[in-house]
């Protein structure tokens, strides 16, 4: 691997969680998120020579992602699009401003996930592994859609609290 590839790989590895999360916030559909993430990875590689190394990489990569999202929004007239370009700009800035430590804390999420009890874990699996919405999850777990939505919110709150704790105390 040449030095350029090594460098772009190193930078992209660190930036990818931020870019992926930014795309998820706008696109929501996980498959479309994956498609866009791949496009952004290609664009980052192709544009890396123009990257000013004196500036932080994550905002630069998110800028590329923001441009891709702009194109995606223009070509998805029939899709349900929640955010306009101003909101997308705001989001891009918000993700770029998240401290690196917050991204690093996410590495504890697997450990925290392992601490969930059976039902919470099951809800996570149905929501994230099987990509089901609360209304679809409800009959599978004998709850109402509204209760599932609230339960998922509580699970995510617990997970956020868990990753905020000191390492080893998860």
């Amino acid at each position, binding site marked *: 691997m040449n030095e350029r590839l090594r460098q772009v790989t190193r930078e992209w590895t660190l930036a990818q969680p931020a870019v992926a*999360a930014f795309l*998820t916030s706008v696109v929501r559909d996980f498959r479309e998120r*994956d498609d866009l993430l791949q496009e952004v990875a290609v664009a980052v590689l192709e544009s890396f020579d123009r990257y000013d190394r004196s500036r932080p990489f994550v905002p630069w990569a998110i800028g590329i992602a923001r441009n891709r999202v702009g194109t995606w929004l223009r070509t998805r007239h029939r899709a349900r699009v929640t955010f306009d370009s101003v909101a997308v700009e705001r989001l891009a800035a918000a993700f770029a401003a*998240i401290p690196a430590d917050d991204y690093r804390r996410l590495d504890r*999420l697997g450990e925290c*996930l*392992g601490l969930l009890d059976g039902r919470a874990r099951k809800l996570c699996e149905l929501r*994230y592994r099987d990509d089901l919405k609360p209304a679809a999850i409800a009959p599978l777990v004998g709850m109402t859609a509204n209760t599932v*939505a609230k339960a998922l919110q509580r699970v995510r709150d617990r997970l956020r609290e868990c990753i905020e704790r000191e390492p080893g105390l998860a």
Partner: protein
Amino acid sequence: MTHRETDDTEIDRLIEGHLDGTLGDTDEARLGRLMTESAGVAGRFAKAVLVHDRLVDLLRVETAASAAGLGGDSTVPPPAASRSLSLRLTLPLGVAAALAVGLLVLLLRPAPANASANASAALERLVRASVAVTDRHYAIRVVDHGPGGKSDPVLSDSGGRKPGVDGARLFVRGADKFVFVRTFADGTALVNGCDGTIGWSVPPTGHVHLSQDPRRFRRGIPGERDDLPFLSFADALAGFRKGYALNLVDVPDAGGRLRIDAVRTDHRHRGPARATIHFHATDVGPERIEFAGLSEEGSGAESVVLELVDRAELPADFFDHAHHHDEARPVDWE
């Protein structure tokens, strides 16, 4: 109501509802408006998405590992840094490593529950991976020449006959660049290709032919008339989405290698009767493709195998026609 008048609980309700897709249009619009008005709301939203997004990847990694027979177990939490671990597995491949990071997400997409759906999901991953700007070099071998048997070799570039595909070499980069090398019996080569925009043909001697039609010099190559143009793996693999029954097979003792068996079920489809695609669970493209029962009007070959030779990075201009002939050769546009 502006963000100043909206309390945090309500903002959280909107954010969580957005993440789960439960908000109505009015609430979605309201959330969008609140974010445009307030960087604080956008920041709160971004932090919420971080966990949501990582959960997707964590749980899908488990599913993909389980589907691939890589030791995944849905009741056991994945390692804390599974994304990083996956990267370490992918990077030594020597392909365009930066892309592998993005591609990994695609390769670890969740597979649905049954074998056919797993195969479809795996196929989708391969289609997307095949679009990546990585270089791959395949050797082509005819394993069944069909009822007419093996044709006589074409001795040289005279008389208009083209060499057969047996022993040909195929180089691909992404979805739209290829170089296809067939050899005459006298050792000279007919090189066809596309740089992504221009289709070209470089015979052993004489004029080089160029065309604005990228597909111009793909005719006569097996698969082209079978609706499965394997010069573009993405197109060829995508061709199996319709008219084929797919089955994902975990190859025993093959170090994580998998196989998709495709059997044509729609006989109106002109593709091969059967195809087998071998690939590695963590890899970015097929290692071997076998086409059996190609249509008679194609290359004449009944069954063809493409085997990956290597993924060495080719020169940047390798897919330009000029790379394959000297500057003095006359060039004709068609």
